[in-house]
């Protein structure tokens, strides 16, 4: 306890005169044997200090509670951001898969169309070949003049062969153009 009258009492009187109030634990160690007016002043200081402490404690507690709420909100936000990112990644993956499927479907349709064209073309070629061959064979068997028919038959076969290669070339070209990468 501080008891020196020369120092404390004088200091406290000056503080009282200037309406300066002491704060903190210092007030608690002042002697209770001070003169009545100084004692009254010290008691006032104590009461004010206690009041200020109480207010500060309440405010600090509020800030602490708000901090906790903010921390919790930040944690929830972080989790939501991660969840959204995951969902975005998943959506992008699904979109890529859908685009890939669509591309594949388009290619398949193209190939099916090409296959149909090839089949029809081959059937036409074979049918024309067969028809011409039957005509030529019939003419030979009936001992008719086959000069014109023979030339026509060989010309026709040449043309059909050329067309066949042309079709095969076209198919190969389409396949190459629609190839991945």
């Amino acid at each position, binding site marked *: 306890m501080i008891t020196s009258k020369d120092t404390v009492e004088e200091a406290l009187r000056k503080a009282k005169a200037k309406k300066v109030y002491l704060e*903190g*634990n210092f007030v*608690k*160690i002042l002697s209770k044997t001070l003169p009545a007016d100084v004692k009254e002043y010290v008691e006032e200081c104590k009461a004010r*200090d*206690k009041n200020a*402490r*109480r207010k*500060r*404690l309440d405010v*600090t*507690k509020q*800030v*602490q*509670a708000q*901090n906790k709420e903010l921390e919790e909100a930040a944690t929830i936000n972080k989790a939501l951001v991660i969840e959204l990112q995951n969902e975005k990644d998943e959506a992008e993956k699904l979109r890529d898969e859908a685009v890939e499927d669509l591309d594949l479907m388009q290619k398949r349709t193209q190939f099916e169309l090409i296959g149909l064209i090839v089949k029809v073309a081959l059937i036409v070629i074979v049918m024309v070949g067969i028809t011409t061959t039957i005509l030529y064979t019939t003419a030979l068997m009936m001992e008719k003049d086959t000069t014109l028919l023979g030339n026509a038959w060989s010309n026709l076969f040449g043309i059909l062969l050329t067309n066949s290669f042309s079709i095969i070339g076209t198919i190969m070209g389409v396949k190459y153009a629609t190839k991945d990468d």
Partner: protein
Amino acid sequence: MIDSILLVDDEDLFHLVFEDACSLLDMTLSLQALDSSDEADKLFKKWFVEGPIDERPECVFVDLNIIGSSFDGIELIRKINTDYGNGVVIGIISSSDDNQEIDKAKGVGAQFWIIKSDEIEPRLEDFVKDYEGYKNKENPFKVYK
């Protein structure tokens, strides 16, 4: 009134809460607050090597999980009690009430466990009432809920 208190807690805001609560309850005139167990460890090591000096606190409150420290509050209590000569009233002040952790703290020589909450003052008031018993090593371990 407790001669001097040391608080080890990573939350700076709690330092203010604890300081004001101690002041309102007239618990102590000397309060030091640290935010890491490493710092507290260094101080206790120093006090242990240099012998009992005035700076050594009479009572220590340690948080359970001290973020940013090499070890938790229970390990700090173990070090103080076994490596640095004991001699202080020491316990945990934490928001946790995990029974396993409470048993661990008891096992390393903690004398009390105070649960942090919005209303810390009533618990500290009860603690102050029991303090002499802790100082004289007469009181058993107690949880202030």
